[in-house]
């Protein structure tokens, strides 16, 4: 009677220490990379509180950004000094309004001189939104072209995309703005949302 021939390949197995070194290395890789991403998030999303008692505005803005509180048109303006080719901008402005004003009418007023100040200004979208506290607001998305003023630098114009959100608070309108180079607009939009979510008007 013929018996089937069975062939078993024998390879020297790993020792206990070698096997567990391999397992623990894999576990360590997962843990360290998770820690690394957490550190990155903490550094990139670190914020500081910006408060203007005179205007009654408090908000969280990214840490390390350049702050400008000297302008007449805005309460504060924060710009990312490391961003290229456009310094990412977050801004909060206040505008006095009459008793019959609506967010849409304020937005219309803002838009009047935009085409004169911003070359190739185009409105992308305009929609009514409701904030977390239930307040009605209007959100405008637009784009324009920014050119370097110094011709000696020989740089190409860049397309800037922006968002303005208008909400009414008593006798004043609060305008929260975000501007960014078109290619990075979506990636950094969360900074605008973060500031909006932490904005307090008192």
């Amino acid at each position, binding site marked *: 009677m013929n018996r089937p021939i069975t062939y078993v390949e024998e390879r020297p197995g*790993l020792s206990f220490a070698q096997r*567990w070194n391999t397992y*623990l290395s894999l576990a360590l890789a997962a843990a360290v990379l998770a820690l690394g991403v957490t550190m*990155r998030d903490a*550094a990139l999303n670190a914020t500081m509180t910006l408060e203007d008692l005179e205007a009654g505005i408090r908000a969280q803005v990214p840490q390390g950004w350049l702050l400008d509180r000297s302008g007449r048109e805005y309460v504060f303006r924060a710009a990312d000094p490391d961003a290229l080719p456009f310094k990412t901008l977050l801004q909060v402005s206040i505008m006095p309004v009459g008793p019959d004003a609506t967010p849409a009418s304020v937005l219309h007023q803002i838009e009047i001189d935009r085409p004169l100040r911003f070359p190739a200004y185009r409105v992308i979208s305009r929609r009514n939104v409701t904030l977390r506290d239930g307040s009605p607001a209007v959100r405008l998305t637009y784009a324009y072209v920014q050119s370097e003023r110094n011709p000696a630098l020989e740089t190409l114009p860049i397309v800037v995309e922006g968002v303005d959100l208008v909400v009414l608070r008593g006798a004043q309108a609060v305008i929260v703005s975000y501007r960014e180079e078109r290619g990075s607009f979506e990636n950094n939009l969360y900074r605008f949302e973060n500031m909006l979510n932490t904005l307090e008007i008192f």
Partner: protein
Amino acid sequence: MSFEPILLAPEEEPVEVYPYRRVWQTTWQEVLLLFAVVAAIYAATLVFDLLPDGLRDTRGKLALALLPLAAWLLISYRGERRAVAPRPYLLSVLLLGALVANAVAMPLSERLFVPDRWLPPQGFFGRALGYTFTVGFAGVFLRYAVLRYTIWETYFRQRLDAAAYALAASLGFAVILNVRYALDTDATVVATGLWVASNTFVHMATGLVIGFFLGELRVSRPPVIWMPAGLLMAAFLGGLHYGFRGIAIVSGLGVGATASRPIGGLALSFALIAALLLIFAFLIQSADERQQTAAGRREPL
């Protein structure tokens, strides 16, 4: 009547032929060659004004980026081919190191870790730890994986094999980063040379750590946390280098616009690889001697 002839000269003892390539010797040659070339370019540009400061010739930058690979092929790989018992998969491991750098490490760094966006403003410890736990560990683990899951089980015959293979994988890894730096940035030739040398040296240094720990894991009985500790140590070494490099470059006193000292980064990286080559040559030699003594093949001193 016969008698044994009396020899006046002592009997010659047979000389044992060393069958493998001598890793330390060829690695030192490569390191010194790269250091000398970059130091010469630095001197010709910033000391003697023989080359223009703003020279940005892409072919020159690419040649500098590929110089470590050319040196390795001419010195280490040719030496390996001439050895009695050459290590068989050195070139394959180098190519795998390059592949994981391009396919995994670069996308991880550019899309997930984005170190340029958050590490530079940090303090020294923030920079060192941030780099260690992101780009540093990813690079170390990828090179470990290349070695561990391909040739480690079969072709790590002795501790020096681990050093040779780890250096090859690290060199392939570093060359991809060099080429990307040369092609993707607007750096000058001298800045590219300094960056290429620093990057290559630090990857070789961390590769030595990975190789030493992997070699011990193959030929001896280390504890179960041996390899994780080695990976962490290699990554932390890279992180420390990243932290100190910023200090070494910007801490110079000078009357220039930035008071920077670009040669400081090169000196730091060269000191790192030189120190690690000496340390691991000593550690591996003494471990081999202890093992031979224990096996009874060598008389204890």
